[in-house]
Protein backbone atom coordinates (compact mmCIF):
# COMPACT_ATOMS: atom_id res chain seq x y z
CA UNK A 1 0.00 0.00 0.00
CA UNK A 2 1.71 3.18 -1.12
CA UNK A 3 -0.18 5.39 1.31
CA UNK A 4 1.21 3.81 4.46
CA UNK A 5 4.62 3.67 2.88
CA UNK A 6 4.57 7.41 2.43
CA UNK A 7 4.04 8.00 6.15
CA UNK A 8 6.71 5.52 7.17
CA UNK A 9 9.31 6.85 4.82
CA UNK A 10 11.22 8.69 7.53
CA UNK A 11 13.50 6.42 9.53
CA UNK A 12 13.81 6.69 13.29
CA UNK A 13 17.08 8.59 13.16
CA UNK A 14 15.79 11.03 10.62
CA UNK A 15 12.72 11.76 12.77
CA UNK A 16 14.83 12.18 15.88
CA UNK A 17 17.24 14.49 14.11
CA UNK A 18 14.33 16.59 12.87
CA UNK A 19 12.89 16.90 16.37
CA UNK A 20 16.25 18.01 17.74
CA UNK A 21 16.82 20.48 14.89
CA UNK A 22 13.30 21.83 15.17
CA UNK A 23 13.53 22.40 18.92
CA UNK A 24 16.79 24.27 18.56
CA UNK A 25 15.48 26.31 15.63
CA UNK A 26 12.28 27.27 17.44
CA UNK A 27 14.21 28.26 20.56
CA UNK A 28 16.71 30.34 18.57
CA UNK A 29 13.84 32.33 17.07
CA UNK A 30 13.20 33.61 20.57
CA UNK A 31 16.78 34.45 21.34
CA UNK A 32 15.98 36.47 24.43
CA UNK A 33 14.85 33.29 26.22
CA UNK A 34 18.14 31.56 25.53
CA UNK A 35 20.38 34.51 26.33
CA UNK A 36 18.45 35.29 29.52
CA UNK A 37 19.64 32.02 31.10
CA UNK A 38 23.17 32.78 30.00
CA UNK A 39 23.12 36.26 31.52
CA UNK A 40 21.47 35.01 34.69
CA UNK A 41 24.47 32.75 35.20
CA UNK A 42 26.94 35.60 34.74
CA UNK A 43 25.02 38.06 36.93
CA UNK A 44 24.27 35.60 39.74
CA UNK A 45 27.90 34.41 39.87
CA UNK A 46 29.09 38.02 40.04
CA UNK A 47 26.90 38.68 43.08
CA UNK A 48 28.91 36.35 45.34
CA UNK A 49 32.11 38.43 45.50
CA UNK A 50 29.93 41.48 46.23
CA UNK A 51 28.40 39.62 49.15
CA UNK A 52 31.54 38.06 50.57
CA UNK A 53 34.30 40.58 49.97
CA UNK A 54 37.08 40.55 47.43
CA UNK A 55 39.69 38.46 49.25
CA UNK A 56 41.27 36.41 46.38
CA UNK A 57 41.98 33.40 48.61
CA UNK A 58 38.40 33.23 49.84
CA UNK A 59 37.08 33.68 46.31
CA UNK A 60 39.16 30.89 44.81
CA UNK A 61 38.11 28.61 47.68
CA UNK A 62 34.45 29.44 47.08
CA UNK A 63 34.61 29.39 43.29
CA UNK A 64 33.85 25.68 42.59
CA UNK A 65 30.72 25.67 44.71
CA UNK A 66 29.56 29.13 43.62
CA UNK A 67 29.97 28.41 39.91
CA UNK A 68 28.41 24.98 40.20
CA UNK A 69 25.40 26.10 42.24
CA UNK A 70 24.84 29.02 39.89
CA UNK A 71 25.08 26.74 36.84
CA UNK A 72 22.63 24.36 38.49
CA UNK A 73 20.14 27.14 39.19
CA UNK A 74 20.36 28.56 35.67
CA UNK A 75 19.77 25.10 34.16
CA UNK A 76 16.78 24.73 36.45
CA UNK A 77 15.28 28.10 35.53
CA UNK A 78 14.77 27.10 31.92
CA UNK A 79 13.38 23.63 32.68
CA UNK A 80 9.73 24.60 32.52
CA UNK A 81 10.22 25.62 28.88
CA UNK A 82 11.33 22.13 27.88
CA UNK A 83 7.82 20.92 27.08
CA UNK A 84 5.47 23.76 27.94
CA UNK A 85 5.21 25.63 24.62
CA UNK A 86 4.76 22.38 22.67
CA UNK A 87 2.18 21.33 25.23
CA UNK A 88 0.30 24.61 24.96
CA UNK A 89 -0.14 24.52 21.18
CA UNK A 90 -0.78 20.75 20.94
CA UNK A 91 2.48 19.89 19.17
CA UNK A 92 3.54 17.63 22.01
CA UNK A 93 0.47 15.44 21.63
CA UNK A 94 1.11 15.09 17.91
CA UNK A 95 4.74 14.17 18.50
CA UNK A 96 3.72 11.60 21.12
CA UNK A 97 1.28 10.05 18.65
CA UNK A 98 4.06 9.33 16.15
CA UNK A 99 5.18 5.76 15.64
CA UNK A 100 8.66 6.44 17.00
CA UNK A 101 9.61 5.40 20.54
CA UNK A 102 8.57 8.09 23.02
CA UNK A 103 11.70 7.60 25.10
CA UNK A 104 13.95 8.58 22.18
CA UNK A 105 11.79 11.58 21.33
CA UNK A 106 12.01 12.71 24.94
CA UNK A 107 15.77 12.22 24.82
CA UNK A 108 15.97 14.53 21.80
CA UNK A 109 14.01 17.23 23.59
CA UNK A 110 16.34 16.90 26.56
CA UNK A 111 19.37 17.17 24.28
CA UNK A 112 17.91 20.30 22.69
CA UNK A 113 17.44 21.80 26.16
CA UNK A 114 21.03 20.96 27.05
CA UNK A 115 22.45 22.47 23.85
CA UNK A 116 20.55 25.69 24.54
CA UNK A 117 20.97 26.11 28.28
CA UNK A 118 23.72 23.76 29.55
CA UNK A 119 26.33 23.83 26.83
CA UNK A 120 26.76 27.65 26.75
CA UNK A 121 27.63 27.55 30.45
CA UNK A 122 30.51 25.16 29.75
CA UNK A 123 32.13 27.87 27.65
CA UNK A 124 31.36 30.88 29.81
CA UNK A 125 32.06 29.33 33.24
CA UNK A 126 35.87 29.27 32.78
CA UNK A 127 35.75 33.00 31.99
CA UNK A 128 33.87 33.67 35.20
CA UNK A 129 36.30 31.31 36.91
CA UNK A 130 39.12 33.68 35.94
CA UNK A 131 37.38 36.41 37.92
CA UNK A 132 37.44 34.08 40.89
CA UNK A 133 41.18 33.56 40.66
CA UNK A 134 41.09 29.90 39.57
CA UNK A 135 44.22 28.32 38.06
CA UNK A 136 44.19 26.92 34.53
CA UNK A 137 44.15 23.31 35.79
CA UNK A 138 41.07 24.07 37.88
CA UNK A 139 39.41 25.82 34.95
CA UNK A 140 39.90 22.76 32.77
CA UNK A 141 38.34 20.47 35.36
CA UNK A 142 35.51 22.97 35.81
CA UNK A 143 34.74 22.89 32.09
CA UNK A 144 34.93 19.07 31.90
CA UNK A 145 32.77 18.61 34.99
CA UNK A 146 30.20 21.10 33.68
CA UNK A 147 30.18 19.40 30.27
CA UNK A 148 29.11 16.12 31.87
CA UNK A 149 27.17 17.64 34.74
CA UNK A 150 24.89 19.99 32.81
CA UNK A 151 23.76 17.10 30.59
CA UNK A 152 22.92 15.12 33.71
CA UNK A 153 21.06 18.17 35.05
CA UNK A 154 18.97 18.45 31.87
CA UNK A 155 18.20 14.72 32.00
CA UNK A 156 17.13 14.70 35.66
CA UNK A 157 15.34 18.02 35.30
CA UNK A 158 13.24 16.71 32.43
CA UNK A 159 11.41 14.48 34.93
CA UNK A 160 10.39 17.53 36.94
CA UNK A 161 9.42 19.40 33.77
CA UNK A 162 7.22 16.52 32.60
CA UNK A 163 5.60 15.98 36.01
CA UNK A 164 4.59 19.62 36.36
CA UNK A 165 3.37 20.10 32.80
CA UNK A 166 0.30 22.33 32.66
CA UNK A 167 0.17 22.97 36.41
CA UNK A 168 -0.21 26.39 37.97
CA UNK A 169 2.82 27.87 39.68
CA UNK A 170 5.20 25.53 37.89
CA UNK A 171 8.43 27.45 38.46
CA UNK A 172 8.72 27.07 42.21
CA UNK A 173 7.29 23.56 42.16
CA UNK A 174 9.94 22.34 39.70
CA UNK A 175 12.62 23.73 42.00
CA UNK A 176 11.25 21.80 44.98
CA UNK A 177 11.00 18.56 43.00
CA UNK A 178 14.28 18.75 41.15
CA UNK A 179 16.79 20.38 43.52
CA UNK A 180 17.05 17.39 45.92
CA UNK A 181 17.64 15.12 42.93
CA UNK A 182 20.42 17.42 41.69
CA UNK A 183 22.50 16.95 44.83
CA UNK A 184 24.70 14.03 43.62
CA UNK A 185 25.58 15.95 40.43
CA UNK A 186 26.53 19.00 42.47
CA UNK A 187 28.57 16.97 44.96
CA UNK A 188 30.63 15.18 42.33
CA UNK A 189 30.89 18.13 39.91
CA UNK A 190 32.02 20.67 42.48
CA UNK A 191 33.96 17.89 44.23
CA UNK A 192 36.11 17.34 41.13
CA UNK A 193 37.06 21.03 40.97
CA UNK A 194 37.66 21.15 44.73
CA UNK A 195 39.92 18.11 44.49
CA UNK A 196 41.91 19.78 41.71
CA UNK A 197 42.29 22.95 43.77
CA UNK A 198 43.82 21.12 46.76
CA UNK A 199 46.17 19.18 44.50
CA UNK A 200 44.33 15.85 44.59
CA UNK A 201 43.36 13.87 41.52
CA UNK A 202 39.88 14.84 40.30
CA UNK A 203 39.50 11.52 38.45
CA UNK A 204 37.52 9.85 41.22
CA UNK A 205 34.86 12.54 41.38
CA UNK A 206 34.77 12.81 37.58
CA UNK A 207 34.25 9.06 37.22
CA UNK A 208 31.41 9.17 39.73
CA UNK A 209 29.91 12.12 37.86
CA UNK A 210 30.16 10.02 34.70
CA UNK A 211 28.38 7.19 36.49
CA UNK A 212 25.57 9.53 37.55
CA UNK A 213 25.35 10.77 33.95
CA UNK A 214 25.20 7.20 32.60
CA UNK A 215 22.44 6.28 35.04
CA UNK A 216 20.51 9.46 34.26
CA UNK A 217 20.90 8.78 30.53
CA UNK A 218 19.22 5.39 30.96
CA UNK A 219 16.55 6.12 33.56
CA UNK A 220 15.63 9.80 33.20
CA UNK A 221 14.13 9.58 29.66
CA UNK A 222 12.08 6.56 30.79
CA UNK A 223 10.71 8.38 33.85
CA UNK A 224 10.22 11.56 31.83
CA UNK A 225 8.30 9.71 29.09
CA UNK A 226 6.10 8.01 31.70
CA UNK A 227 5.42 11.39 33.33
CA UNK A 228 4.57 12.94 29.96
CA UNK A 229 2.07 10.18 29.23
CA UNK A 230 0.42 10.81 32.60
CA UNK A 231 0.28 14.54 31.90
CA UNK A 232 -1.28 14.03 28.47
CA UNK A 233 -3.88 11.47 29.57
Amino acid at each position, binding site marked *: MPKTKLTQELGTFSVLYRILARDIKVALRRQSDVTAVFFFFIIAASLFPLGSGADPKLLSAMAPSVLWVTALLSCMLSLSRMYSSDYADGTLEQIMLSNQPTVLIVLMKILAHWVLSGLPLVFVAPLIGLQFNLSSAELQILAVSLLMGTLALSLIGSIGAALTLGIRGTGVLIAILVLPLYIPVL*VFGAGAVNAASIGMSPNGALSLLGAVLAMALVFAPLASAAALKIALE
Partner: protein
Amino acid sequence: MKNLDTKTSINWLKYASPKTFYPLAGKLIPWCVIGAVGLIVYGLYIGLFVAPTDFQQGEGYRIIFVHVPAAWFSMFLYLLMAMYAGLGLVLNARLSYMMATAIAPTGAMFTLVALVTGSLWGKPMWGAWWVWDARLTSELILLFLYIGYFSLQAAIDDKNRADKASAVLALVGAINVPIIYFSVKWWNTLHQGASVSLMKAPAMATVMLKGMLVMAIGFWLYSIAVILIRVRCEILERDSKAAMFNLGL
Protein backbone atom coordinates in the same frame (compact mmCIF):
# COMPACT_ATOMS: atom_id res chain seq x y z
CA MET B 1 -8.71 -9.81 38.48
CA LYS B 2 -11.66 -11.96 37.46
CA ASN B 3 -9.71 -15.11 36.72
CA LEU B 4 -7.98 -14.92 40.11
CA ASP B 5 -11.29 -15.60 41.80
CA THR B 6 -11.00 -19.36 41.22
CA LYS B 7 -11.42 -21.69 44.16
CA THR B 8 -8.02 -23.33 43.72
CA SER B 9 -6.02 -20.23 44.65
CA ILE B 10 -6.34 -18.04 47.70
CA ASN B 11 -7.74 -14.69 46.73
CA TRP B 12 -4.88 -12.40 47.69
CA LEU B 13 -6.53 -9.46 46.07
CA LYS B 14 -9.68 -9.63 48.17
CA TYR B 15 -8.55 -6.73 50.34
CA ALA B 16 -7.23 -4.74 47.38
CA SER B 17 -10.62 -3.12 46.94
CA PRO B 18 -11.48 -0.16 49.16
CA LYS B 19 -14.87 -1.72 49.91
CA THR B 20 -13.44 -4.77 51.69
CA PHE B 21 -10.36 -2.99 53.00
CA TYR B 22 -12.31 -0.31 54.84
CA PRO B 23 -13.89 -2.63 57.48
CA LEU B 24 -10.68 -4.67 57.81
CA ALA B 25 -8.69 -1.52 58.55
CA GLY B 26 -11.33 -0.50 61.06
CA LYS B 27 -10.86 -3.79 62.95
CA LEU B 28 -7.06 -3.55 62.91
CA ILE B 29 -6.76 0.04 64.16
CA PRO B 30 -7.70 -0.50 67.86
CA TRP B 31 -5.25 -3.40 68.26
CA CYS B 32 -2.44 -1.38 66.68
CA VAL B 33 -3.19 1.60 68.93
CA ILE B 34 -3.17 -0.55 72.07
CA GLY B 35 0.05 -2.28 70.99
CA ALA B 36 1.70 1.00 70.07
CA VAL B 37 0.87 2.71 73.36
CA GLY B 38 1.95 -0.33 75.40
CA LEU B 39 5.25 -0.84 73.59
CA ILE B 40 6.20 2.83 73.47
CA VAL B 41 5.52 3.19 77.22
CA TYR B 42 7.54 0.01 77.90
CA GLY B 43 10.33 1.15 75.56
CA LEU B 44 10.51 4.57 77.24
CA TYR B 45 10.59 2.85 80.65
CA ILE B 46 13.57 0.75 79.55
CA GLY B 47 15.22 3.79 78.00
CA LEU B 48 14.71 6.21 80.86
CA PHE B 49 14.97 3.97 83.94
CA VAL B 50 16.45 0.53 83.17
CA ALA B 51 19.26 1.35 80.73
CA PRO B 52 22.52 2.30 82.48
CA THR B 53 24.04 5.76 82.29
CA ASP B 54 26.56 6.09 79.48
CA PHE B 55 30.07 6.63 80.83
CA GLN B 56 30.92 9.14 78.09
CA GLN B 57 27.67 10.93 77.37
CA GLY B 58 25.97 10.69 80.75
CA GLU B 59 22.18 10.86 80.77
CA GLY B 60 21.99 12.86 77.58
CA TYR B 61 22.32 9.85 75.35
CA ARG B 62 18.85 8.59 76.35
CA ILE B 63 17.32 10.50 73.47
CA ILE B 64 18.70 7.69 71.31
CA PHE B 65 15.62 5.61 72.14
CA VAL B 66 13.47 8.04 70.19
CA HIS B 67 16.04 9.29 67.71
CA VAL B 68 17.27 6.05 66.16
CA PRO B 69 13.89 4.30 65.69
CA ALA B 70 12.49 7.54 64.20
CA ALA B 71 15.39 7.68 61.74
CA TRP B 72 14.83 4.03 60.80
CA PHE B 73 11.17 4.65 60.13
CA SER B 74 11.76 7.84 58.16
CA MET B 75 13.71 5.78 55.62
CA PHE B 76 11.63 2.61 55.82
CA LEU B 77 8.37 4.50 55.27
CA TYR B 78 9.81 6.29 52.23
CA LEU B 79 10.68 2.95 50.64
CA LEU B 80 7.26 1.56 51.60
CA MET B 81 5.60 4.61 50.06
CA ALA B 82 7.62 4.15 46.86
CA MET B 83 6.67 0.46 46.83
CA TYR B 84 2.97 1.25 47.04
CA ALA B 85 3.42 3.94 44.40
CA GLY B 86 5.10 1.44 42.07
CA LEU B 87 2.38 -1.11 42.79
CA GLY B 88 -0.20 1.52 41.92
CA LEU B 89 1.49 2.31 38.61
CA VAL B 90 1.84 -1.37 37.66
CA LEU B 91 -1.55 -2.67 38.76
CA ASN B 92 -3.41 0.62 38.43
CA ALA B 93 -4.90 -0.10 41.86
CA ARG B 94 -6.46 2.91 43.52
CA LEU B 95 -5.94 1.56 47.02
CA SER B 96 -2.16 1.44 46.44
CA TYR B 97 -2.13 5.14 45.61
CA MET B 98 -4.22 5.86 48.68
CA MET B 99 -1.74 3.90 50.82
CA ALA B 100 1.20 5.85 49.36
CA THR B 101 -0.64 9.11 50.03
CA ALA B 102 -1.42 8.02 53.58
CA ILE B 103 2.14 6.92 54.37
CA ALA B 104 3.82 10.19 53.31
CA PRO B 105 2.79 12.43 56.27
CA THR B 106 3.86 9.81 58.84
CA GLY B 107 7.19 9.34 57.08
CA ALA B 108 7.78 13.08 56.97
CA MET B 109 6.83 13.35 60.66
CA PHE B 110 9.43 10.71 61.62
CA THR B 111 12.04 12.50 59.48
CA LEU B 112 11.31 15.71 61.32
CA VAL B 113 11.42 13.94 64.69
CA ALA B 114 14.78 12.37 63.79
CA LEU B 115 16.17 15.78 62.75
CA VAL B 116 14.88 17.62 65.82
CA THR B 117 15.99 14.96 68.33
CA GLY B 118 19.30 14.77 66.48
CA SER B 119 19.97 18.45 66.88
CA LEU B 120 18.80 18.40 70.52
CA TRP B 121 21.28 15.61 71.07
CA GLY B 122 23.99 17.32 69.07
CA LYS B 123 23.97 20.52 71.12
CA PRO B 124 25.26 19.02 74.41
CA MET B 125 27.43 16.33 72.73
CA TRP B 126 29.01 18.16 69.80
CA GLY B 127 28.43 21.70 71.03
CA ALA B 128 26.43 22.58 67.90
CA TRP B 129 22.80 22.30 66.90
CA TRP B 130 23.76 21.19 63.44
CA VAL B 131 26.79 19.44 61.97
CA TRP B 132 27.10 18.74 58.26
CA ASP B 133 27.55 15.09 58.95
CA ALA B 134 26.61 12.59 56.23
CA ARG B 135 23.76 11.10 58.23
CA LEU B 136 22.21 14.43 59.19
CA THR B 137 22.55 15.81 55.69
CA SER B 138 20.97 12.83 53.96
CA GLU B 139 18.14 12.84 56.51
CA LEU B 140 17.55 16.51 55.66
CA ILE B 141 17.47 15.67 51.95
CA LEU B 142 14.98 12.88 52.70
CA LEU B 143 12.74 15.54 54.24
CA PHE B 144 13.09 17.56 51.01
CA LEU B 145 12.01 14.51 49.02
CA TYR B 146 8.91 14.13 51.20
CA ILE B 147 8.16 17.84 50.76
CA GLY B 148 8.46 17.44 46.98
CA TYR B 149 5.98 14.57 47.09
CA PHE B 150 3.45 16.63 49.08
CA SER B 151 3.89 19.71 46.93
CA LEU B 152 3.35 17.85 43.68
CA GLN B 153 0.27 16.12 45.00
CA ALA B 154 -1.15 19.37 46.30
CA ALA B 155 -0.48 21.23 43.04
CA ILE B 156 -2.44 18.87 40.77
CA ASP B 157 -6.20 19.20 40.99
CA ASP B 158 -7.08 16.03 39.08
CA LYS B 159 -6.79 13.24 41.70
CA ASN B 160 -6.01 10.55 39.16
CA ARG B 161 -3.12 12.50 37.66
CA ALA B 162 -1.90 13.62 41.09
CA ASP B 163 -1.67 9.97 42.18
CA LYS B 164 0.26 8.84 39.14
CA ALA B 165 2.57 11.84 38.90
CA SER B 166 3.52 11.71 42.57
CA ALA B 167 4.01 7.94 42.25
CA VAL B 168 6.59 8.53 39.49
CA LEU B 169 8.28 11.11 41.71
CA ALA B 170 8.33 8.72 44.70
CA LEU B 171 9.97 6.01 42.58
CA VAL B 172 12.57 8.40 41.16
CA GLY B 173 13.28 9.57 44.71
CA ALA B 174 13.63 5.98 45.96
CA ILE B 175 16.24 5.21 43.28
CA ASN B 176 18.02 8.41 44.29
CA VAL B 177 18.04 7.79 48.05
CA PRO B 178 21.11 5.47 48.04
CA ILE B 179 22.92 7.64 45.45
CA ILE B 180 22.29 10.75 47.55
CA TYR B 181 23.40 8.95 50.69
CA PHE B 182 26.72 7.83 49.21
CA SER B 183 27.38 11.13 47.45
CA VAL B 184 26.87 12.99 50.72
CA LYS B 185 29.05 10.47 52.54
CA TRP B 186 31.92 10.87 50.09
CA TRP B 187 31.42 14.63 50.00
CA ASN B 188 31.80 14.58 53.75
CA THR B 189 35.05 12.59 53.68
CA LEU B 190 36.43 14.89 50.98
CA HIS B 191 35.85 17.96 53.10
CA GLN B 192 36.40 16.75 56.63
CA GLY B 193 35.23 13.89 58.74
CA ALA B 194 32.70 14.42 61.48
CA SER B 195 34.49 15.31 64.69
CA VAL B 196 32.53 12.78 66.72
CA SER B 197 31.34 9.50 65.33
CA LEU B 198 28.37 8.12 67.17
CA MET B 199 28.17 4.66 65.77
CA LYS B 200 31.79 3.74 66.36
CA ALA B 201 31.16 3.77 70.08
CA PRO B 202 31.92 0.49 71.88
CA ALA B 203 29.36 -2.24 71.35
CA MET B 204 26.02 -1.23 72.72
CA ALA B 205 24.67 -2.76 75.91
CA THR B 206 21.95 -5.35 75.33
CA VAL B 207 19.48 -3.38 77.42
CA MET B 208 19.92 -0.39 75.11
CA LEU B 209 19.41 -2.51 72.02
CA LYS B 210 16.31 -4.06 73.58
CA GLY B 211 14.91 -0.63 74.41
CA MET B 212 15.49 0.57 70.87
CA LEU B 213 13.88 -2.50 69.32
CA VAL B 214 10.82 -2.22 71.59
CA MET B 215 10.49 1.42 70.63
CA ALA B 216 10.90 0.53 66.94
CA ILE B 217 8.09 -2.04 67.08
CA GLY B 218 5.97 0.49 68.97
CA PHE B 219 6.62 3.09 66.27
CA TRP B 220 5.75 0.49 63.66
CA LEU B 221 2.36 -0.22 65.23
CA TYR B 222 1.77 3.51 65.61
CA SER B 223 2.57 4.00 61.91
CA ILE B 224 0.19 1.22 60.89
CA ALA B 225 -2.61 2.65 63.05
CA VAL B 226 -2.20 6.21 61.79
CA ILE B 227 -1.81 5.14 58.16
CA LEU B 228 -4.91 2.97 58.32
CA ILE B 229 -6.95 5.79 59.85
CA ARG B 230 -5.73 8.09 57.08
CA VAL B 231 -6.53 5.54 54.37
CA ARG B 232 -10.06 5.19 55.73
CA CYS B 233 -10.51 8.95 55.54
CA GLU B 234 -9.08 8.94 52.03
CA ILE B 235 -11.51 6.21 50.93
CA LEU B 236 -14.46 8.13 52.35
CA GLU B 237 -13.29 11.39 50.83
CA ARG B 238 -12.63 10.05 47.35
CA ASP B 239 -15.78 8.12 46.76
CA SER B 240 -18.15 9.39 49.34
CA LYS B 241 -21.26 8.33 47.44
CA ALA B 242 -20.10 4.78 46.85
CA ALA B 243 -18.90 4.54 50.44
CA MET B 244 -22.25 5.65 51.83
CA PHE B 245 -24.00 3.10 49.67
CA ASN B 246 -21.67 0.18 50.39
CA LEU B 247 -21.10 0.73 54.06
CA GLY B 248 -24.64 1.76 54.84
CA LEU B 249 -23.49 5.04 56.33
